[in-house]
């Protein structure tokens, strides 16, 4: 299986503060990786580096087997940013318009939306279970529904991998399971590789196939089963030793108590 993302001995510092130290990590095709770490652990920096929004300082990143500096096929990578800080909820746009805007880059400059693009948008809305909301204004939806719309926006350009930054922030606790259900579905049935970062280990569900614990260093990286078997030792490095990871299989893979 090809590694979609490969990170080798990556370091990153902002002026005097080192935020990432010697990170080596790979994301195999078809996997669902959760990168877990507390706030300020360098998760967002890592994402920005993977997305090419920050310049590499030391170490390297390959995407689809190609060095990031030479990588051109960005449409293969879908990105769902942390919703809370990047959009104005009073914006007068329908769900359909928001999702269609995900086609902007793929269609290119000086082009217009075509008939078949409408189908693409509706298919993406169906994949996240939001087709009936297509004519609603985005600001009228709940946090979880908005997050689904943003995933649909990333899906319209038919990416191979979806990168999600804290996707469950702003999703009501009772809807988090359904949200992961949908992500698991995208991963299993549509074959989309998923990479998400979260500070909340409680939200990592059994749909996740791999876990990485990050806090400047990589403390753990492996399958979800090994992670559970290790009783979250990777986590104790930054969440403290008296934190235990409880497993109950009917709902989440691991719950922090």
């Amino acid at each position, binding site marked *: 299986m090809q590694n979609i993302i490969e990170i080798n001995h990556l370091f990153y510092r902002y002026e005097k503060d080192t935020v990432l130290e010697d990170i080596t990590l790979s994301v195999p095709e078809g996997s669902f990786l959760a990168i877990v770490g507390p706030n300020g652990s360098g998760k967002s920096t890592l994402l920005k580096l993977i*997305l090419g*929004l920050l310049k590499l300082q030391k170490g390297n990143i390959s995407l689809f087997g190609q060095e990031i500096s030479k990588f051109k096929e*960005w449409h293969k990578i879908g*990105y769902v*940013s942390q919703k809370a800080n*990047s*959009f*104005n909820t*009073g*914006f*007068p*746009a*329908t769900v*359909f*318009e*928001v999702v269609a*805007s*995900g*086609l*902007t*880059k793929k*269609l290119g*400059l*000086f*082009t*217009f*939306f075509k008939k078949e693009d409408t189908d693409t948008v509706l298919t993406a809305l169906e994949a996240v279970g939001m087709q009936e909301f297509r*004519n609603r*204004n985005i600001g009228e939806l709940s946090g979880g529904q908005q997050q689904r719309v943003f995933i649909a*926006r990333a899906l319209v350009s038919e990416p191979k991998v979806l990168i999600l930054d804290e996707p469950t922030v702003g999703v009501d606790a009772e809807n988090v399971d359904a949200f992961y259900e949908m992500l698991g579905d995208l991963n299993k049935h549509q074959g989309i590789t998923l990479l998400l970062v979260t500070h909340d280990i409680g939200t990592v569900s059994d749909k996740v196939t791999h876990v990485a614990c990050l806090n400047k260093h990589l403390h753990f990286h492996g399958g979800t089963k090994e992670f559970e078997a290790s009783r979250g030792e990777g986590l104790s490095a930054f969440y403290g030793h008296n934190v235990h990871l409880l497993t109950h299989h009917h709902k989440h893979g691991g719950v922090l108590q």
Partner: protein
Amino acid sequence: MISGIFHYEFLQNAFLTGMLIGILAPLLGVFIVVRRLSLIADALSHVTLSGIAASLLLEKYVTSLAGLNPLYLGMVFSVGGSLFIEKLRGVYKHYQELAIPIILSSGIGLGVIFISLANGFNTDLFSYLFGSVSAVSRTDLWVILIISVLVVAVLILLYKELFILSFDEDYAKASGIPAKSIHFIFIIMVALVIAASMRIVGILLVSSLMTLPVAASIRIAKGFKQAIFLSVLFGEISVLGGLFIAYYLNLAPGGTIVMLAVLILIFSILYKKLMINQYVQKGGTAG
């Protein structure tokens, strides 16, 4: 009675120009408002004033420039001001709104100096401040027509990109859209439209034509395209209605246009309230 209005060339000029501005200002205004850049329009209009004052000054002292249309220098200053704002927004990354008062006060300061050098106000300058029906020349009309065609063409061609840039700038950048260049083109269009609009509504009121119809439309619009459509509709009603009323009642057109826009805004707020109340009442009877 209406045919009487179109008997005079200056009135034809005023109405045709008004129609164009009624489309242009709210059209760009939608993007300005949703991007929270409303005050930029204000800053640029004040910079335009200094350009016009400079032009009037030149006209007075340089005989070869007599008859120079102040619109041109106004546009040059407006575009120049927009570039300065962008530069300043880069300098003060964490105080981006600071660029606006800096440019606004510089524009006024410079304008006042030019005015004093030209020995104070004259009626011509007064008409630029508050708008005038009689001041619009045929040349103005042509210039504004060219700007209209240009702006509408750019908006159609870059609609997708402007939408995504307005809705979610981070996402636009992350997906590799040339955000900087598109923003640059956009801000130049804003500068041109502001300079073009001031003949009719006046410098002090230009920004209102970019914001009031939009403020009314986003209360009630479903979706972005509808917001654009309603903004242009409200803008057009304000401008044409305002011009008629101003002409017959002998009022300043700028003020009349703006007050009509305010009236529409109040109606749209009340309409929305009514809708919400009805919705709540319906929910109440159903539950």
